[in-house]
């Protein structure tokens, strides 16, 4: 197992380096003088010369690439041109929103998609099966942003004043200002500058509510999360349901299932222990592949539900030409994506010994 993990780790390193090279090249391909872009149109040649020297921009390109990689490894992504703050700081501010949205979207997709797929396979060609497959086909064909808009209209306008009404924007009711858990626990006093990690975690509202045992905050945060999470989770849900269905169908027709039935095991044991366990491997891969969809979905839905996550910040930065931010966010998201894929592969190897030894 250890060799497998190490091998997989070693395989990720060139890809991560490749990502850095690509983002570096993309940033250098941007037309225009970076000095004028950062310091404004009226920067003199002397100031620009100093700026270039300070940022290593007069070095040859390979040296610049090395500087870029070194900075990245040190957690320095440069300063945002628009906010005049380190990109890393903005990331700590805004990534929690996206992480929380992605987590609940995936939770929704898995907790509905897997049972739906398994049931459809078990009742192959029943009304439930046909219905699920039609629904799944429609689900993968919907634009995420359109679904988000429609959900917002349905739950915030049509169902207004009913118990089903849900807020169409924001993360919390306006005015709510939850106490971070590190202050509630007395680790830090109000006004102290916490570690980035603590700040990051406290900004995940549901986690913060859980740690401070704040039920009201939890319900408020969840109510705001439902619509965007359903919008982002629908396409992955459809894909996961389809994959679970075909995977369970295949394993139900295997010899070992027939053997299990023949030796008189109860139906639940046959399906749960024998068919399902073996059918889950491809499903896990598909769940892993869906992280990309969740990220893309978050980019599109955050704008609709006025959530200040990485997606919305990224999109706004494009229109305001904040290249350092776009570059920094892109490279971090891509690196995170590679790491998640690596973890999924490792899980796959853990669950299926055949993978490890090939």
């Amino acid at each position, binding site marked *: 197992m250890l060799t497998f993990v190490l091998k997989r780790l070693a395989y990720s390193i*060139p*890809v*991560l380096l*490749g*990502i850095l*090279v*690509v*983002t570096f090249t*993309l940033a250098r*391909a*941007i037309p225009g003088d970076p000095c004028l872009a950062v310091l404004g149109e009226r920067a003199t040649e002397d100031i620009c010369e100093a700026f270039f020297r300070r940022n290593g921009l007069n070095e040859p390109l390979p040296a610049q690439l090395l500087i870029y990689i070194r900075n990245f490894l040190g957690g320095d992504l440069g300063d945002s041109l628009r906010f005049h703050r380190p990109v890393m700081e903005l990331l700590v501010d805004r990534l929690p929103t996206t992480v929380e949205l992605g987590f609940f979207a995936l939770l929704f997709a898995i907790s509905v998609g897997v049972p739906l797929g398994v049931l459809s396979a078990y009742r192959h060609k029943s009304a439930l099966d046909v219905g699920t497959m039609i629904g799944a*086909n*429609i689900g*993968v*064909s*919907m*634009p*995420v*942003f*359109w*679904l988000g*808009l*429609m959900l*917002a*209209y349905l739950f*915030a*306008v049509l169902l207004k004043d009913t118990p089903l009404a849900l807020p169409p924007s924001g993360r919390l009711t306006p005015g709510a200002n939850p106490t971070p858990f590190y202050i509630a626990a007395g680790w830090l006093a109000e006004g102290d500058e916490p570690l980035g990690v603590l700040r990051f975690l406290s900004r995940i509202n549901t986690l913060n509510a859980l740690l401070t045992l704040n039920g009201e905050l939890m319900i408020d945060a969840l109510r705001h999360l439902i619509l965007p999470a359903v919008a982002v989770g629908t396409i992955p849900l459809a894909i996961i349901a*389809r994959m679970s269905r*075909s995977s369970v*169908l295949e394993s139900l027709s295997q010899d070992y299932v027939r053997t299990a039935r023949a030796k008189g095991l109860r139906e639940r044991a046959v399906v749960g222990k024998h068919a399902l366990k073996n059918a889950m491997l491809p499903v896990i891969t598909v769940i892993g592949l869906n*992280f*990309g*969809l969740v*990220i*893309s979905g978050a*980019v*599109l839905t955050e*704008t*609709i539900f006025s959530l200040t996550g990485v997606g919305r910040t*990224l*999109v706004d930065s*494009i*229109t305001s030409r904040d*290249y350092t931010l*776009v570059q920094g966010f*892109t490279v971090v*998201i*891509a690196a995170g*994506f*590679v790491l998640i*894929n690596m973890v999924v592969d490792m899980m796959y190897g853990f669950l299926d010994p055949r993978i490890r030894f090939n």
Partner: protein
Amino acid sequence: MERRQPATLALAARYRSGNLWLEALRNLRRSPSALLGMGIIGALVLIALFAPLVATHDPIKTMIGVPGETGRLPSKPPCIPLLGCEEPLHILGLDLNARDLYSRVIFGARTSLSVGVITISLSIVVGTALGVCAGYAGGRVDNLIMRLMDVVLAFPALLLAISIVTILGPGLTNALLGITITFIPQYARLSRASVLSLKEQEFVLAERALGASPQRIVLAHILPNAITPIIVQGTLGIGTAILDAAALSFLGLGAQPPTPEWGQILSESRNYLFTSPHLVFFPGIAIMITVLGFNLLGDGMRDALDPRLNRS
């Protein structure tokens, strides 16, 4: 003769019938989802081709001050005959710039279909060329090409497309280019895998022993046998490409106003969701039906053309 398996017999019968493609077409005709998909795409292609006849108005013409129009201001909620409105001039009402929404959605089919087909064709051509080179040459060329593809795949597709368009500048052509790049690795991987398995087959070895040039081997023997999974993947890809293009336009990076493009129409009208939801509803439905058509056809083709990939 008695020991022949039924599968082999079926295969033999297929070869006797002369054409695997005809066989596939016959299979396709038996699949209801593929038929539905073909129906949807066929209808959409006709609508796109004859858009000026199907549409009732000029899709980019404002209806303010036009004789016979009510002069309804764009700020007023538009009027839909289907929902019991008295003015029978505009089937889906007017948009916020007082343009005929129905005509805009109809003309949008042209943009979306061509974007889908062009991006996928381009990425198939480039991806297959890269994949075939990698698979046939092997060694360092293979390694270089495939690692490059790994890096492209490491980015979430939409994010990479966004980054590319950010640098090239917003616009439909650049969006198209950005999406194309994100699709290339799929086809490179697929075609490389096919080449690797075909390269060692007897008919290819025989051809090589006869002294055929690599070009001839690739073009006449490997490609025709490797093309099936690529076509299936491509059909499914068109749907995704259309969704991606709509998403880029929605973010303001793709088609620019006043081009009638579905994602762009959505982007224009999304701030008026609460007052005139139909402006958002209809273009979204149009996207969904189109993508559904390609997905259904792609699924049906996968089942018909490649029994090994059959996912029932």
